[in-house]
């Protein structure tokens, strides 16, 4: 059950924002829609909410097709990136709004509303700020008001559009840990949009990687990180170095072609993209074996448990390498040192497919 999307297509004029999206989200999961800006992830979220009508396809929530329903009938909780709090209402009135606008027959009594709003404000740890106006709150507080407001109508799904996008790094971290705990507590099917891979990997039960209006991969954070289904996913998740390589005898050879075996452009061996994560490159001061290639140290950022090196390969590409502090001290590197690199792990794609 949960949410089911079938063949969702959305066009804006000649631009296709979403192409034949099919996705099923089990009840109670916290799912991240991860992708670069312009990938269509927010459009997808708005289609689920009913804020944008899909040109084709159906949206099922708990088995119920809601494609024809207006947003107000869908019972989805929605948290906007910039909160969209009602600026002329207090925190209390913001949260109570969804209950107050119900038709008389379904509207809870005044005492009931008060009790429910206060319970929600306690849940988001804002019970002392009920009488404040949104302008008197910090970004993180506003975000939690928006969340309480969305939860007040007891939605069957919770949708969050870049929920932490507008917050500074420290608050963002705290708030997403808190969201994870809250989700574990209330077990509401939730979908959040993000362009931050770290956020998706840390918080979500399942990640949906979106690119150019299509789903690239669906999987747990571990699956998506360990087995990227496409070059795009590999590149989008984690710090990666991209090498252009030739396939020779079924093996990739990094760097530009040497030209020795080539008799002409017709004989060019097939090109491939090789991805190596920055911590999957071994650094040596001497060449040992054929797998290695030379590079020069251009910049060193020595802060943190891992030392980040910016290197320039012999053929001119920039490479990012992260090595443990002990290894760095062992090697005794400095700027302009010449080193040799050996990939420990790599993923080769030819035309976006795994080889």
């Amino acid at each position: 059950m949960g949410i089911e999307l079938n063949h969702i297509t959305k066009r804006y004029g000649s631009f296709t924002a979403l192409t034949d999206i099919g996705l099923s989200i089990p009840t109670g999961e916290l799912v991240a829609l991860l992708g670069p800006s312009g990938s269509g992830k927010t459009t997808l979220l708005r289609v689920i909410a009913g804020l944008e009508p899909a040109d084709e396809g159906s949206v099922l929530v708990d088995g119920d097709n809601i494609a024809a329903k207006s947003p107000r009938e869908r019972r989805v909780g929605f948290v906007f990136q910039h909160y969209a709090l009602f600026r002329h209402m207090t925190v209390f009135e913001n949260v109570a709004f969804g209950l107050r606008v119900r038709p008389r027959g379904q509207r809870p009594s005044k005492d009931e509303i008060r009790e429910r709003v206060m319970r929600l404000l306690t849940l988001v740890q804002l019970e002392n700020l009920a009488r404040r106006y949104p302008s008197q709150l910090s970004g993180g507080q506003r975000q939690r008001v928006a969340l309480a407001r969305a939860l007040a109508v007891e939605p069957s799904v919770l949708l969050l559009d870049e929920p932490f996008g507008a917050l500074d790094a420290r608050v963002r971290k705290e708030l997403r840990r808190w969201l994870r705990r809250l989700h574990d507590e209330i077990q509401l099917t939730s979908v959040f949009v993000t362009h931050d891979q770290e956020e998706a990997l840390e918080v979500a039960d399942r990640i949906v990687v979106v690119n150019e209006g299509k789903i690239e991969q669906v999987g747990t954070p571990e699956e998506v990180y360990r087995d990227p289904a496409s070059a795009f996913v590999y590149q989008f998740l984690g710090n990666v170095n991209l090498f252009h390589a030739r396939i020779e005898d079924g093996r990739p050879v990094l760097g530009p072609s040497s030209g020795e075996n080539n008799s002409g452009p017709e004989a060019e061996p097939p090109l491939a993209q090789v991805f190596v994560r920055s911590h999957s490159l071994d650094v040596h001061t001497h060449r040992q074996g054929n797998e290695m290639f030379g590079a020069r140290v251009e910049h060193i950022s020595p802060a943190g448990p891992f030392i980040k090196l910016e290197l320039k390969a012999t053929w001119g590409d920039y490479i990012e390498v992260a090595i443990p502090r002990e290894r760095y001290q062992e090697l005794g590197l400095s700027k302009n040192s010449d080193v040799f690199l050996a990939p420990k792990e790599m993923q080769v794609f030819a035309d976006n497919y795994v080889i």
Partner: protein
Amino acid sequence: MTTEPKAVQWALILLAGAFLGLFLLVPLASVFAEALAKGAGSYFSALREPSAWAALRLTVLAALIAVPLNLVFGLCASWCIAHFDFRGRSLLLTLVDLPFSVSPVISGLVYVLLFGLHGLLGPWLAKLDIQVIFALPGIVLATVFVTFPFVARELIPLMEELGTEEEEAALLLGASGWQSFFRITLPNIKWGVLYGVILCNARAMGEFGAVSVVSGHIRGKTNTVPLHVEILYNEYNFVAAFAVASVLALLALATLAAKSLLEWQIGRQRRVDDTLRTEETVHGY
């Protein structure tokens, strides 16, 4: 700060002050001076004179009809323009501005050509015994036309700036379109609405050209205050003319005061909104 020498600054300020004084303050003061030239007694009796009183009533009545109509039109037009990207949107924007670019006399004349006895709809209206030109409906129509842009012009940028997110949020929380309008949109634009209404009202009561063409100048019947002032002046009845004119001057002053008060209010709200939109969280969450 500027780098101009003090002397230049003062010269410029003096120049602007002298200009304002000569062209605005002196005429305004002279209106009241002339009106009170023969004492307060004749001032008030000029205002109590039946045809002056009738003109005042007609002006207020026309404004009472025209301003609410334009409030509704303005709300609808600005709502559509701010919320939807439809074919003909820019045409609508241009049409809203049309009354600003057309001479009021022409707009009055258009109504005469349309509704007058020899106009397009004239014979048909005459058969139904409806008189538009030289009567209240004509005056209201001309006033509505001339004052149409004030509310809409004020609200379009305001609504565009507000965006649609809060309304979307209200909708998703289960509010109906009306609930969202009255509980979310209207409270956010109320100062802008009031501002537009006040300017619209000032223009409606002060309009001369368009109304002059359609009114027919029937004393005590179809004369509005500005028209009545002209008649009195042409009859060399200066005290009465300036006494009635002083009512319009007072309206202008009241409008000015209300306008600056509202501008201050809107400025305050905008500052609050700006803090709401600033996305920094200095004090943590």
